[in-house]
């Protein structure tokens, strides 16, 4: 067993703040209202911070340590389908794809949301549709993300949710 510090405070704060922001704007605030708008700006700021942190942050926060790599993702998938167990220190390759997917999707939701507040785009149907469609997509992906975290925690015998709270991964 070895304990490895992988998620710095900013990465963890970003993760849970994003969760809170998304839940509030999906289920609590009303679209078009001030609270919804400001939370949206908040989420956009969070993503901007994370993007910068991905360039200058510590090792496991950097994009360079988890590049979007389809070949590595397939290696990861091959491990799953053959029952081989080699836990990753930072983001797993399939997990990394989900990170980029969620970052991009949330960015699109934020941008289309902002567009709807401007005179030019207010009430434009395709912008609204895009905003809604990506909210649904992010909801589906969040469910998939949680399922995958539970599945991987059991498969690898590494408590992944705990590591996103404490910052430490306990690897076998």
């Amino acid at each position, binding site marked *: 067993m070895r304990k490895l510090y992988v998620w710095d405070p900013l990465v963890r704060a970003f993760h849970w703040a994003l969760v809170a922001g998304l839940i509030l704007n999906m289920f609590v605030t009303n679209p078009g209202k001030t609270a919804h708008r400001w939370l949206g700006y908040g989420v956009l700021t969070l993503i901007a911070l994370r993007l910068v942190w991905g360039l200058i942050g510590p090792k496991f926060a950097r994009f360079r340590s988890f590049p979007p790599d*389809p*070949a590595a*993702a*397939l*290696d990861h*998938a*091959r491990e799953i*389908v*053959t*029952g*081989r*167990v*080699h*836990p990753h220190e930072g983001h797993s390759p399939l997990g990394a*794809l989900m990170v980029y997917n969620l970052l991009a999707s949330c960015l699109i939701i934020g941008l289309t949301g902002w567009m709807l507040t401007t005179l030019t785009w207010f009430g434009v149907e395709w912008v609204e549709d895009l905003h809604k*469609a990506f909210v*649904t*997509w992010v909801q*589906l992906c969040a469910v998939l993300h949680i399922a995958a975290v539970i599945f991987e925690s059991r498969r690898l015998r590494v408590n992944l949710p705990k590591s996103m709270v404490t910052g430490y991964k306990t690897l*076998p």
Partner: protein
Amino acid sequence: MTRPDRKSLTLFGLILFQAFCLAFFLFDVIEDFAGLYDASVPYGHFLPEAGATLGMAIGLAFETRYLIRLLRKQAHMERGLGVAAGELATLMEDYFRKWGLTAAEADVAAFTIKGYSITEIAGLRGSAEATVKTHLNAIYRKSGAQGRGQLVSVLIEDLMRAPLVSGEKPMGQGALAEGAGAKG
């Protein structure tokens, strides 16, 4: 780890793209489903759409199943080269399925056939040696083979009966032998 070929990469990309599309169709169908009650959406609109979405979901499921098989086969071929490797891997997969091995057991069986020791297999799979031994017991019980030697000879026997580079699968030995007029 082997670099995946173009085929599995393309398939992987296709699956991701279709999952994305399916999510949107599904969203649409669910919204329309609500519209059936107040008759704002006619059945003539809903049913074909729901059918098409279902068709897409089924296609996606088959593609995923195919990718899983492809990945397993690649994983078992890892260090194999040459003409016989592909044929042997196909043959192994067929037998593993016939014996009803689990994914983990099939992986251990493939390593065993290639001559890796229990310690080596445990290292390659990131599992304990005791686990590998449990898998081996299950493999021998399900296949009826007495040990590693017999496991290998089952495959070799089949390979010798069939031409190496042919489209034909050398499974179902009896049928193949009869078809070739070898028995009789």
